[in-house]
């Protein structure tokens, strides 16, 4: 079974440069003698790509307690409330942490992506990755850290994916109408809105207009 191979983090290894600031990647980087880099900038802000995988990342500060944000995210079906191109997430089988993500593509089709939780640290980190049975090769992780003072929680989302090639055809790069960078940024902003205000901002004047906009954003 795939989750019996905890050391398998292919993109993190490949993306050693881009993810230098991540704990898991740091180990790989260290082996490659990069521990001398004193820079504090997060790896995903690096001005170069990370091998075969593309890495997008973004941080926001959310004025809510860390435990609350973690609990909301850990309930994966909640993600479709703010991830625009996600139709729904549902548990797959009886194994905990195993989900099927239904992701909308440009043509309006929905693709199923099977994911397993790769690592979790209560209240701090959730990482997931697509299983070998999926048509899409992707991994994601979200981390939660206390922000200074009364500022709440710093939430960082990092998604790595393999750009479209060969058999995968319309893999993640083409999945959404927006670029994955933009999509991740917008998704995280909507997460912040939902957590801080209980709703997601819209300029729609009527419910019908709102419905139309929501569909167009997908």
């Amino acid at each position, binding site marked *: 079974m795939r989750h019996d191979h905890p050391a398998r983090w292919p993109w993190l290894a490949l993306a050693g440069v881009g993810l230098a600031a991540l704990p898991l990647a740091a180990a790989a980087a260290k082996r490659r003698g990069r521990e001398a880099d004193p820079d504090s900038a997060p790896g995903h802000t690096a001005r170069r790509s990370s091998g075969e995988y593309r890495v997008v990342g973004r941080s926001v*500060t959310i*004025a809510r307690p860390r435990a609350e944000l973690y609990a909301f995210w850990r309930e994966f079906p909640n993600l479709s409330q703010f991830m625009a191109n996600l139709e729904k997430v549902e548990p797959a089988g009886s194994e905990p942490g195993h989900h099927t993500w239904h992701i909308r593509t440009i043509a309006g089709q929905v693709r199923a992506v099977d994911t397993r939780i790769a690592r979790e640290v209560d209240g701090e980190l959730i990482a997931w990755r697509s299983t070998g049975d999926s048509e899409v090769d992707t991994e994601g992780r979200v981390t939660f850290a206390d922000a200074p003072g*009364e*500022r*709440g929680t710093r939430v960082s989302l990092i998604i790595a994916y393999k750009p479209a090639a060969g058999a995968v055809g319309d893999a993640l790069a083409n999945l959404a109408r927006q670029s994955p960078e*933009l999509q991740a*940024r*917008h998704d995280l*902003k*909507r997460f*912040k*809105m939902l957590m*801080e*205000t*209980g*709703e*997601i*901002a*819209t*300029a*729609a*004047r*009527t*419910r019908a207009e*709102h419905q139309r906009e929501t569909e167009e*954003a997908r």
Partner: protein
Amino acid sequence: MRALTWQGTKKVSVETVADPEIVNPRDAIIRVTATAICGSDLHLYDGVIPSMQAGDILGHEFMGEVVETGSDSTLTKGQRVVVPFTISCGGCFHCRITQFSACENSNPSEKQDMSEQLYGHPMAGIFGYSHMTGGFAGGQAEYVRVPFSDVGPIAVPDHLDDEQVLFLSDILPTGWMAADNAGIGPDDTVAVWGCGPVGLFAVQSALAMGAAQVIAIDHYPHRLELARQLGAETVNFHTSDVREALMEMSGGIGVDAVIDAVGMEAHGFAIDNMLDIAKQTIGIGADRASALKQAILAVRPGGRVSVPGVYGGMTDKFPLGALMEKGLQLRTGQTHVQRYMKDLLGMIEEGKLDTTFLISHRLPLEQAAEGYRQFRNAQDSWTKVVLKPGG
């Protein structure tokens, strides 16, 4: 319902559009009883603000009666409220430190990209002010959907009529914050560029804050007269050299604080305007910032520069050296309306502030297009236009 819509540069018209509805739980629907045309609406009218779309409903200064509330609104039907022009959630980092106009959650995420690229950070949502600030329908209409109605709108007592409180929505707090940003002390001499509504309210606010001397600068005789009636001294820049006049009037020290209430549409203040106009025409968004440049040269070393005037792009030949070598402080920004509304309402109730002197024209909403034309072209006599829907 009927609403004033933007149709293109210098083209606005009242059209019939769908009534707004409650979309989010914290929304309320307001039936507008009074709404004003703002100087900054003229930037939209003139087509110098990007991301406008034909059919956009304008207006960010409005008040009215609550007619519908979402499940999480704290307003009640029948309440009379004034609505701040900036939309603020009350719960984000910036709202919590009362920097409401920097709210992180009111501009829809997909609308934030443009200002984030231009300015490094996204702008908050604003009613009726282009898609860069959310594309929210404005208040020059019979009804408005008001998001976060539990945070922004302020209830007003029945004994104050609309015209006494309408300007709490923007220009009164904007003039007040301009004076606040100028850090005014009791012995100060303060110079205000521009005697439009914000400039006049800045004059009034500076005097209320105890400034010893306030000097108002403009070239419209009627507007200068209004400033004098408030207690200001005046300088007409068509007939006097402004910097020299200010030096003399401040006894050779220079003024302690300057307020640029003109913004990017500054005309007539200096020769480099022509160059700036040319650039604006070809669309690279160079702001004409002559009033600000002049203000920076006029203020004394160690003085304060406050900029309530609206700028959107870049400017060149900015006197950065004067700013640094004279050790100036510069403060600016869209108004944190919610921070000031309650206190200012109190001052209106106590009779310490009157804002109605500004209103020169009252029109039914149906004549809004005419109001824009006149407000744009006859600035001396058309100081402020109040529109009454259903009137």
